[in-house]
C-alpha cells in the first residue's frame, strides 16, 4: 500500500462564491421543478411520455435552466474539491428549499421535519470546517507532508 492520501484546503473567496451558486441554483431549481410538476398532477408510469411533455412546462423549463447552472458550478467545484466536501458545503440548500416549500409552495412542514433540517444542516455544515481536497500525489518532501498533516489536524 502507498502512503496515506493528504488533505488540504484549496478554497478561495471566489471558490466559496461558486459553492454559493451550487447551493442557490440547486434549491431554486428543485423548487421550480416541484411547482411545475404539481401543476401537471400525478404522472403515471404507464405513460412515461408525460415526463417528456413536462419538460416544456414553463416552471419545469425554468427549473431545468437553473439546474444547468447548478451542474456547471458543481462540475467546476469538483475539479478543486472533494465530493465529500462539496456536497456538505452546499447544505444551505436544504434550508432554502424547505423555506420555499413552506412559504411559496404552501406545503405543510412539521416541527420534526424542521428539526431534521437543523440536524442535516448542522452535520453538513460541520464538515465544511475541515480540509477540502484529498491529494493522491505523494508529498514531494517531508516539509510538504508536515504541512499537509497539520492541515488535516486543524
Amino acid at each position, binding site marked *: 500500500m502507498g502512503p496515506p492520501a493528504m488533505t488540504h484546503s484549496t478554497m478561495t473567496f471566489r471558490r466559496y462564491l461558486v459553492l454559493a451558486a451550487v447551493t442557490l441554483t440547486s434549491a431554486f431549481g*428543485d423548487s421550480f421543478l416541484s411547482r411545475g410538476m404539481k401543476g401537471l398532477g400525478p*404522472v403515471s408510469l404507464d405513460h412515461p411520455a408525460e415526463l417528456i411533455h413536462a419538460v416544456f412546462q414553463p416552471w*419545469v423549463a425554468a427549473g431545468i435552466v437553473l439546474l444547468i447552472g447548478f451542474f456547471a458550478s458543481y462540475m467546476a467545484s469538483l475539479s478543486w474539491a472533494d465530493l465529500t466536501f462539496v456536497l456538505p458545503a452546499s447544505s444551505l440548500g436544504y434550508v432554502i428549499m424547505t423555506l420555499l416549500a*413552506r412559504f411559496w409552495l404552501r406545503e405543510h412542514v412539521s416541527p420534526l*421535519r424542521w428539526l431534521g433540517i437543523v440536524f442535516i444542516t448542522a*452535520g453538513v455544515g*460541520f464538515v465544511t470546517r475541515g480540509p477540502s481536497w484529498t491529494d493522491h500525489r505523494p508529498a514531494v518532501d517531508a516539509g510538504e507532508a508536515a504541512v499537509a498533516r497539520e492541515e488535516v489536524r486543524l
Partner: protein
Amino acid sequence: MIIGHLTDAALATIGMIGAVVITATAGDILTASAMRQVGDLDRIREKSGLLGAIRAVLTNGRFGLGVVCLALSFFSLLYAFSHRDLSLIGPAATSLTFVTNALAAKFFLHENVDRRRWMAAICVCVGVALVAF
C-alpha cells in the same frame, strides 16, 4: 384496508427515494472521478480558455457515463415530485445521497473521509430519519 394502504404508500415512497439515491450516487461518483481526471478547471481555463475547459470536460468518457446516471436520477426525481411533497422527497433523497456518496467516495474515489466527515454523515442520517418519518 387502511393499514395495508399506508404500507403500500410507504413502500412506494421508499422505492422512489431509493431510485433517486442509487442513480444519483452512481452519477456523482462517475462525474467526480471524471473531474479528478480532467484536473483543476481554473488552471485549464487560464491555459486554454473557457472553450478549452468545456471541451476537456465533455470529451471525458467517464463524465458521459455520469451524466447518463444523473439524467436517470433527474427523471426519477421528477416522477417522485409529482407524487410526494418537495419537502419530503427533496431533503430525504438528497441527504441520503450524501451518505451513500461518502461511502462510495471513500471506496471508489479514495477520498480521505475522516472522523469529521463521518460525524457529519451520522448527523445527516438522523436528520434524514426525522425528515422522512
